């Protein structure tokens, strides 16, 4: 009998354990109680100085609620819109899906930068905190992230935005949402007219296999289904891809090039940045050169 118990014990442990490692995809920080924006003293993605200032009157912090699709109570998502909300009905708007770090304060310098694209507030810029990030409720999961992005699209649509004036921009983790929308537009409230991917990753499984050497399925570690290199095959809108050639985290040849090569849409533009690492590509390019590349793509 004892031997039987000993034999069954590992099986019991195996079947009882449900620990997944998805949470490691999300570097969220929800310890803040308010967005400090220019007064934020923590680490930030970039230092853009005072050259890209955004007036308080053009900065709108707001919340919207989403359902996580599992029949649970809706929860609140926090967002920042820069520009005139009343002009969403006529302006082109960039929906910026940030990376995995911290919260909106971390990425605020980028939102300021994009608010000066082609002139101050030529384009409205919306940035959201995913569930579990910053002031947003909920827990960070892949589906919750997509739901939050869909909630942002719903908010933009309600404010008069149409598909032809929507540009979706994803950075790093944020490229998952952009590729998901681009590849499956019927599953979302709106369809972007153009997409921008900065430092995208090919897939969660690719990240794992690069690090483990062995061809382990992603399911050995995570429940994540992110497959940007697959979703992008279904895209039907123009793509701008920006990637640092010295990206030490998501290597350009292992990730960005795969996404770019797999793109199945009508028009694609690549900006490979010599010396650019994962986070600092705008700085390495020079902010004005970087903005000019974005503007050229959006206006072409």
């Amino acid at each position, binding site marked *: 009998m004892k031997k039987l118990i000993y034999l069954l014990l590992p099986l019991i*442990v195996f079947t009882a354990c449900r620990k*997944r490692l998805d949470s490691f995809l999300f570097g969220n920080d929800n310890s803040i109680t308010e967005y400090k924006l220019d007064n934020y003293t923590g680490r930030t993605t970039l230092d853009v100085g005072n050259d890209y200032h955004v007036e308080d009157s053009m900065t709108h912090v707001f919340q919207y609620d989403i359902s996580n699709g599992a029949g649970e109570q809706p929860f609140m998502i926090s967002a920042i819109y820069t520009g005139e909300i009343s002009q969403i009905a006529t302006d082109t708007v960039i929906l910026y899906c940030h990376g995995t770090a911290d919260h909106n304060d971390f990425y605020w310098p980028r939102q300021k930068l994009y608010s000066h694209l082609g002139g101050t507030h030529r384009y409205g810029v919306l940035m959201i905190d995913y569930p579990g990030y910053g002031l947003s409720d909920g827990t960070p999961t892949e589906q919750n992230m997509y739901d939050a992005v869909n909630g942002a699209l719903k908010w933009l649509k309600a404010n008069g935005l149409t598909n032809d004036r929507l540009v979706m921009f994803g950075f790093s983790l944020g490229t998952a949402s952009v590729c998901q929308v681009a590849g499956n537009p019927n599953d979302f409230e709106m369809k972007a007219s153009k997409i921008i991917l900065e430092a995208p990753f090919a897939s969660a499984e690719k990240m794992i296999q690069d690090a483990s050497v062995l061809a382990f399925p992603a399911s050995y570690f995570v429940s994540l289904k992110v497959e940007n290199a697959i979703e992008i095959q279904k895209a039907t809108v123009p793509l701008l891809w920006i990637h640092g050639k010295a990206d030490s985290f998501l290597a350009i040849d292992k990730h960005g090039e795969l996404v770019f090569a797999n793109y199945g849409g009508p028009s694609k533009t690549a900006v490979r940045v010599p010396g650019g690492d994962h986070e600092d590509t705008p700085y390495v390019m020079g902010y004005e050169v970087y903005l000019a590349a974005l503007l050229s793509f959006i206006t072409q």
Partner: protein
Amino acid sequence: MKHLFYLITSIFALGACAPSHFVKPLAYKQHAVSASLGGAMLKVPGVATIPVPNTTLGYGYGVKQDLTVYGNLYPTAAIFGVFQFDAGCTLQFWKQKNMGATVSPGINFLFDRFEKNAGLWPQLDANFYWNYFERKTSSDHKDGVSQLKSLHVDGHTNFFYVGFSNWFQLKGTMTLGLKQENRLVFSPQIGHTFERGHWNYNLELKFLTPYLSNQNIIVDYVSPFGKRGGLGAFFSVTYRL
């Protein structure tokens, strides 16, 4: 995003590293149980450089004087819903007075409970060992089998070993249909074992894929070869019955 998969891939990272299970064969009809702790050394930001706390629980049996069969379960993997098991044998094909050489073919099997993905990786290890200290204790067992066992469990022996471990990837493709460029995953190792009565205490360093770049990936491996490979550190104990 860099910290995200630090613990992820590390659980079974870089060749699913585990220490050598039996460098020397057990005595004929001898049983042994073992446990090990350790894995690839990683830089974890804000914490330290630590070996991954991978664990194994194993069993071995001396089928012949020079042949031991064994199997191991991986509890750490089980915590994450992955059933990992290996099985194999250690054959001593050469022996001199104070040294010998063994080869250990085996298989590694992994299966996750979430998507039911199963994978099989054959493995071939080889080791050369050298006893540099040996003190045998005589015994009055009458039969040969017991006497052979007693020589193993009563003596004190220290030995070094060097060898290598190979994992073979049967699938020709990686994710996204990419070509598998590392069909053979090669990692040399060095180790030292203290045999004290029934107990063996073992320390092993494994030089994980020292020919592959460890740059521009989501994990910061620590390697004596700088930008190539990784270093695995393991401690294991074996109790011989």
